């Protein structure tokens, strides 16, 4: 029988199927952070249960951490308390804890792959919807709620019905100035923010085959923004070269065995998907969002669609544009902006900072712009320095902050003020996502860089042409 990549990984992890109910799915790797784990540990305590396999869970603090002066005590007592709870719970149950100040601390979906915790063909969960990131390695990875965090701690399993299967093919090659972020925002704009709900997605086609692991992570990260449980890409040489030799990757004989397994991880030629889409990669342009969900995106050179051209309720659409202070038919190019945020589990990796640097090099930050550049991990931070990117940033008037989720979700001190516009490389433009009243334009690091140096929404290709 022909199977998809998703079937192969899912089916090999099913402990038991329940008649008229979910599958009991074994979880290979469990990532936890400070926000969605404390109540799960409280549950364990009240039931008097131990963690079944502490070596399969890894803890890092990221959502609620400051991105400056990390050597000082955390000022907000609630945040400090939550960070302390993660540490004490991890210590009590024998879980590796990478807290603030630890060399391995960083955004959970950045450090997991960096240290080889993320493996092809694994099942990976975390109490965070962007766990879909790890699907870039051919893993089944998805976000879970706190009740499920408790289940995994207690039994290393969760109970979920098997999702339907969708394949999204993007053929050909990407054009000049078009990045993996644009591919993802384009797909979401086509499918809408709920278009893949109930499905697990496999991304296939030339565009993904040509992508680096960083690019694939950006795409898989955003799978949840069209409602998908997760998204995955079949492992290939690019994947194996990335995984090999990392701290938690298999070594020696175990590596040979793992390699043999990785090579089985592809969709059979005649396997059938419940739904399939195909897009031409060469038709995608740099993208930007204009509304209050990630499906409200368009090519940067286009005009904001009129209400009758979009699906869904006119009242909700009007509410969204009203929140943003935009009108139907407006051009996005030329709109003045106030903040630029480069970072997050979506675009906080070294490749993203290289892209940002490629445009700001030799230019200056616009006076009206406040910019936050936040690496996803200490490895990314070190690479920014080693590769000379920090010198480029400093010369252009930018400051580099310390690793964390930062302004992506406005839980820590990094918040966009009410009414202000931010071009952000993160993943959500929901009302108030980056701070109460904040207005977010999601885009790639190149679009962010073009906005940072011009102070307005600018097509990055124009600046790139000047250089060429």
């Amino acid at each position, binding site marked *: 029988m022909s199977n998809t990549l998703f079937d192969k990984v899912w089916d090999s992890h099913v402990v038991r199927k329940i008649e008229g109910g979910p599958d009991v799915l074994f979880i290979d790797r469990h990532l936890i952070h400070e926000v969605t784990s404390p109540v799960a540990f409280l549950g364990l305590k009240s039931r008097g249960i131990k963690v079944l396999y502490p070596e399969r869970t890894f803890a890092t603090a990221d959502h609620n951490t400051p991105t400056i002066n990390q050597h000082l005590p955390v000022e907000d007592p609630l945040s400090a308390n939550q960070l302390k709870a993660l540490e004490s719970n991890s210590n009590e149950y024998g879980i590796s804890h990478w807290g603030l100040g630890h060399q391995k601390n960083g955004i959970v979906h950045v450090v997991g792959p960096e240290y080889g915790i993320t493996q092809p063909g694994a099942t990976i969960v975390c109490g965070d919807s962007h766990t879909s990131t790890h699907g870039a390695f051919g893993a089944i990875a998805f976000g879970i709620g706190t*009740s499920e965090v408790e289940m995994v701690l207690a039994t290393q399993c969760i109970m979920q019905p098997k999702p339907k299967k969708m394949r999204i093919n993007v053929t050909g090659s990407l054009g000049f100035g078009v990045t993996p972020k644009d591919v993802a925002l384009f797909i979401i704009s086509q499918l809408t923010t709920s278009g893949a709900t109930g499905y697990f997605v496999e991304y296939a086609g030339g565009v993904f085959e040509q992508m680096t692991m960083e690019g694939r992570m950006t795409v898989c990260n955003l799978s949840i923004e069209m409602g998908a449980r997760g998204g995955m890409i079949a492992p290939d040489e690019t994947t194996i070269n990335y995984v090999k030799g990392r701290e938690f990757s298999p070594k020696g004989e175990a590596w040979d065995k793992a390699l043999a397994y990785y090579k089985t991880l592809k969709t059979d030629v005649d396997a059938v998907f419940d739904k399939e889409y195909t897009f031409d990669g060469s038709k995608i342009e740099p993208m930007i969002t204009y509304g209050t969900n990630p499906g409200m995106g368009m090519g940067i050179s286009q005009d904001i669609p009129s209400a009758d051209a979009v699906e869904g309720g006119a009242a909700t659409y009007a509410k969204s544009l009203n929140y943003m202070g935009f009108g139907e038919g407006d051009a996005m190019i030329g709109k003045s902006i106030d903040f630029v945020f480069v970072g997050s589990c979506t675009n906080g990796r070294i490749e993203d900072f290289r892209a940002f640097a490629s445009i700001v090099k030799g230019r200056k930050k616009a006076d009206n712009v406040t910019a936050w550049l936040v690496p996803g991990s200490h490895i990314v931070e070190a690479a920014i320095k080693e590769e000379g990117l920090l010198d480029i940033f400093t010369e252009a008037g930018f400051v580099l902050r310390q690793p964390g989720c930062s302004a992506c979700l406005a*839980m820590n001190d990094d918040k966009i003020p009410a009414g202000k516009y931010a071009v952000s490389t993160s993943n959500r433009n929901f009302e108030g996502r980056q701070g109460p009243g904040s207005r977010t334009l999601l885009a790639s690091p190149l679009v962010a860089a073009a906005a940072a140096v011009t102070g307005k929404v600018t097509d990055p290709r124009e600046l790139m042409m000047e250089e060429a």
Partner: protein
Amino acid sequence: MAYDKFDIIKSTAVPLPIENVDTDQIIPARFLKATERVGFGDNLFRDWRYNTDGSLKADFVLNNPVYKGKILLGGMNFGSGSSREHAAWAIYDYGFRAVVSSFFADIFRGNCLNIGVLPVQVSAEFLDRIFAAVHANPETELEINLNDQSITLLSSGEKENFDISSYKKDNMLNGFDDIDYLQNIKTEIQEFATHLPL
């Protein structure tokens, strides 16, 4: 965590006819700093419900005293975005036991079922009629019967069935959760773990 058993609820409803309500609206991230499950209901729909000075926004439905009850009515694609279970906690803690919509985001639906909030998915047409009936008369009652898997608009008698797995239905009828189940098959899980592909 144990929750109250769910059987039949008969209640008025609070209408929120907005599509794509994401969990950042249900509870913004800055209210996720607690280490215990207490007080989340106070911050349900925080930024839609309160002005920045803490005063109530008069035009938001939760602040309109004519609308009350144990049932929240939401537009299509309710609960999208972040996986924060705090969103389901906030809804439960506020006093809702069911959310009715024409479409739910996956993770939110699962979180609700895990904590004893029933997500009731109805057709878009029926949802429109429920909204219309409740807007026309806020005293309009709905009856949700989990055992029958039905929801009835009592003013007209119109009824629709909804889907729920028999496993989850049993759990909700009895107030069980998944950990109760998984704990009972722990030996099977440990045996399974000895022959994993990785």
